[in-house]
């Protein structure tokens, strides 16, 4: 036996110990920790998001209002990027070097291993030239997306716009939305978001170290398909809408037209308007800022957000309510000596346009006599056999049934409810509840503390046309393949005015347009019996607003309409003619007026000189966005439930 033989064991021991160290290390990284499995998947797995096509929106004749157009988002995985010609790259996608560095740093900060958006919405044209060179830029790839496109550039405020989802919504959506997803921000895009957005799909593919695709991961076991959003059929008549927008160009105001028999909104013009295509694509941010800073507030949705004292058109409501409260009847006559005198010893006067002399209700409406309605209001409040403050509450109750002072619940976000002052307001103002009609007499003629949106006015017209009921005004008449109609839109909302009381009011409105002494005789439509009422809204901040509302034809009405033109003076001058051609266009599809009649309307520029504030309540910059999110958080759950049910119903129909 040679010396040091026992050292054999030391050497073998060292070998075994080293092996055990290797094995325990392997045991740790292969079995104990799953960190490396995750990293491995991170290496090879690329989740390709398949974005669903957003639902399209059609008009009532199923012509497209909104379509989808393909664009290409340029994505980058920073750690896959190899040195390349950045100058050429920047030129290809039309950015500068500083912009490149900024984007790249941002992407790297997000994650060096994960794909992040580098430049969004490259157009088809840009992509075509870029595509050929794409292989020279490892680490970059494009993802197909679609963006909105508006073939007729119409109905911007109705349609609203989409934008990238913000961080708060991502958190609140419990994982539905991801960074870079689009979401409806205003208009129908927002209120029908849950139906329009569809369901995104995910395709899991494997890539090699250079990012080249190598086929499906696990044979597509974890892939999901994208489901397109539902198609919405709007109640809007595209031709009528465009015609209305043309009539309202260079004017501030609204047109709302409703089909009384259904509550479907036929035209929804908010002026000034803008081309909805401006809020799409790479220039969106710039255009958005520009629109927000426009003093005429094109983003302001006037039909549902502008609140005006309605002026003389409110006399129609008072005429109906007064009959219902038995204050007057169709034969009641008052004498107009040029004004309504009230207060202590008749010391105060609410002036009238003319000395009308003795006149009945029909004449009072036809000639818009302030005096008559002063007396009428006086009777309703002061001579109702109860304390005026209580009588006012009865009056308030009747008026509010017309949808005044509360939201009608149109299917657009950010509707305003207007103002119908409660008795408490006056009690508070005068310091006691011992007040009477003299304290708020201007309510008799639609002035004072009242605030009514054009939509509410149009709805009043629909109520009159229907002689006592209305359907909730809405813009989307059918959803999806199965043309589902929401239940709430088929429900009749009754106004507690006896149908017989409407006749005399309608007679008077007929006279407004069709009898020689009517205020809107100039707007008479040949061959169509339109009933209407003019209004001139006092505007302390500028020229009066011109208002006209009407329905037609008198028998079996097809359209109820309101036109508001701000700072345009008498209702008969601008609003009534505009309403009359709208009605004619809708009912006959031709305009039979003297030459120059239409051009006068088209060409008139009634925009106020800049910096003149309009009297309508205009939200400050950013308020729209803020309040919209509030509404979303309050009502989204119930809307979502409803939308889920609709989606299900449509899906079933497809299966069948």
């Amino acid at each position, binding site marked *: 036996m040679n010396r040091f033989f026992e050292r*054999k064991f030391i050497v073998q021991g060292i*070998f075994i110990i080293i092996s055990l160290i290797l*094995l325990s290390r392997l045991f740790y990284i292969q079995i104990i920790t799953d960190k490396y499995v995750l990293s491995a998947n991170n290496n090879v797995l690329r989740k390709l998001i398949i974005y669903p096509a957003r639902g399209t929106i059609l008009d009532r004749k199923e012509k497209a209002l909104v379509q989808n157009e393909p664009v290409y988002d340029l994505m980058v995985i920073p750690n896959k990027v190899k040195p390349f010609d950045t100058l050429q790259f920047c030129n290809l996608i039309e950015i500068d070097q500083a912009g490149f560095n900024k984007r790249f740093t941002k992407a790297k900060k997000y994650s060096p291993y994960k794909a992040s958006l580098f430049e969004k919405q490259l157009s088809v044209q840009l992509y075509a030239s870029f595509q050929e060179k794409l292989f020279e830029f490892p680490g970059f790839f494009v993802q197909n997306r679609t963006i909105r496109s508006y073939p007729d550039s119409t109905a911007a405020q109705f349609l609203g716009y989409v934008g990238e989802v913000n961080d708060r919504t991502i958190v609140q959506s419990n994982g539905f939305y991801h960074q870079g997803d689009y979401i409806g921000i205003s208009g129908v895009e927002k209120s029908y978001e849950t139906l329009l957005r569809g369901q995104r799909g995910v395709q899991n593919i494997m890539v090699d170290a250079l990012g080249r695709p190598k086929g499906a991961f696990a044979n597509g076991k974890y892939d999901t398909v994208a489901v397109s959003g539902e198609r919405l059929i709007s109640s809007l008549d595209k031709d009528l809408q465009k015609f209305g927008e043309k009539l309202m160009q260079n004017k501030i105001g609204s047109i709302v037209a409703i089909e009384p028999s259904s509550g479907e909104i036929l035209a929804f013009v908010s002026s000034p308007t803008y081309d909805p295509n401006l809020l799409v694509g790479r220039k969106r941010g710039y255009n958005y800022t520009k629109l927000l800073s426009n003093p005429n507030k094109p983003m302001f949705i006037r039909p549902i957000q502008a609140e005006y004292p309605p002026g003389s058109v409110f006399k129609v409501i008072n005429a109906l309510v007064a009959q219902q409260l038995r204050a007057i009847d169709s034969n009641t006559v008052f004498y107009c000596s040029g004004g309504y005198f009230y207060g202590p010893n008749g010391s105060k006067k609410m002036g009238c346009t003319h000395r009308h002399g003795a006149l009945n209700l029909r004449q009072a409406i036809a000639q818009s006599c302030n005096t008559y309605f002063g007396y009428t209001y006086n009777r309703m409040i002061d001579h109702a056999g109860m304390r005026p403050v209580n009588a006012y509450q009865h009056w308030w109750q009747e008026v509010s049934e017309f949808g005044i002072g509360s939201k009608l619940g149109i299917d657009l976000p950010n509707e305003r409810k207007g103002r119908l002052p409660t008795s408490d307001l006056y009690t508070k103002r005068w310091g006691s509840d011992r007040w009477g009609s003299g304290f708020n007499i201007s309510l008799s003629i639609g002035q004072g503390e009242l605030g009514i949106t054009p939509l509410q006015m149009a709805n009043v017209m629909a109520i009159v046309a229907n002689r006592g009921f209305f359907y909730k005004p809405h813009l989307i008449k059918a959803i999806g393949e199965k043309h589902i109609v929401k239940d709430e839109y088929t429900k009749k909302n009754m106004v507690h005015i006896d149908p017989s009381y409407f006749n005399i009011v309608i007679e008077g409105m007929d006279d407004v347009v069709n009898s020689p002494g009517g205020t809107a005789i100039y707007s008479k439509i040949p061959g169509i019996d339109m009933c209407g009422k003019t209004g001139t809204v006092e505007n302390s901040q500028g020229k009066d607003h011109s208002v006209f509302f009407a329905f037609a034809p008198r028998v079996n009405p097809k359209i109820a309409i309101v036109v508001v033109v701000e700072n345009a003076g008498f209702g008969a001058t601008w609003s009534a003619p505009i309403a009359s051609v709208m009605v004619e266009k809708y009912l006959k599809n031709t305009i039979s007026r003297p030459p120059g009649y239409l051009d006068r309307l088209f060409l008139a520029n009634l925009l106020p000189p800049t910096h003149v504030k309009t009297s309508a309540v205009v939200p400050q910059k950013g308020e729209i966005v803020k309040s919209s999110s509030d509404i979303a958080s309050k009502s989204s759950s119930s809307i979502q439930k409803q939308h889920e049910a609709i989606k299900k119903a449509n899906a079933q129909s497809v299966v069948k």
Partner: protein
Amino acid sequence: MNNNQPKPFFSVDWTVIAIFIALCLFGWLNIHASVYNPEKPGIFNLSTHYGKQFFFIITAFILGTVILLLDGQFLNAISPIIYGITMFLLVLVPIIGKSVAGNQAWIAIGPFTLQPSEFAKFPTCLLLARYLGMDQVKIQDLKTKIIAGIIIFIPIALVMLQPDTGSALTFTSLIIVLFREGLSGYFLFLEGLLIFLFILTLLYGKLILTVTLALLSGLLAYINRKNKKITATVALTLFISIAFVFSVDFAYKNVLKEHQRDRIDVILGKVNDPRGEEYNVNQSKIAIGSGGLWGKGYLQGTQTKYDFVPEQSTDFIFCTVGEEWGFAGCFVVISLYIFLLIRIINIAERQRSSFKRIYGYGVASFIFFHFFINIGMTIGLVPVIGIPLPFMSYGGSSLWSFTILLFILIKLDSNRIGTTNT
């Protein structure tokens, strides 16, 4: 002479040969997996790594057979000549060599490139065995230490010149041989200490380390102040340590190349750079770590198949084992190596001649060093030193060199019965 002589295969160690074949074939399977391209199948395609490796394995088998058929008696005698020729060739390499990955360590012969540094292993072993096996030579003598040191140091220096640090370092493993032959455990301790100091120097700098060493040594010397021998040893160790720390510091800053410094920095955690050197180690760990217990299955390894792991058929072949065969596969491979190593030590110990025993230890030392460093670097335990996994990594030079190394031992062993040679 003896009756078994005419039958060269009768007394060969079949266990070792079986492990050798198993490792070669398993390595080849993994090379196939790591470069597998579904668009270009074909196992024997000579344009692919696995096609070439198949050729290398066949030739290695032939080479092994030829070695077994040769007469092993003269090896001892001619070892100085073999050593001399090899060293001469090593000198030639930097002059006629071809640069691969920054190392001028390759010589082109026809369509193949050879790495002569690999072939320096068996001559060094043989000469060291011959020298230490001589009757009057004792490793305890200073002269012996110096001569043995020179035998080992010449190939180190020559390979360093190429420069191929990784291959050069493998020769330091021969200290195991010296230890077995009676070198004081102090030297083994010293080598461990120096490796430890090497790392600490790079981590903390020479000044802090020097002061700490001096304090520790002072303390040790004070405690053992009665024992002069220990005090002297401590003093010597302190001197060597400080000299080493300073030279490491100098070498790190002035001799090492940038990429070598980077590798060391990464393994020491001094830099965090997933794109650079760390990327390789990281990807390697990911590949192995994602294998789990049973692996992803043959040809199913995504990390290796899709080129995330660099050098995956050569230095990082173990990644494929780890990913596709899992911990189970790793366990089998490591078991095969450790079984082979223990077997080689047992073979060495059963030799009557010192020459054969020492040679056997040399073989074990080399295989062990490659095995430990290679697998260690793929799982992030040791710095990335580009040396192959014996018998498994792609490459003819490495395979042939280890085949020669191993089969000489088998041949020597098969002659053990009835013969002695000194």
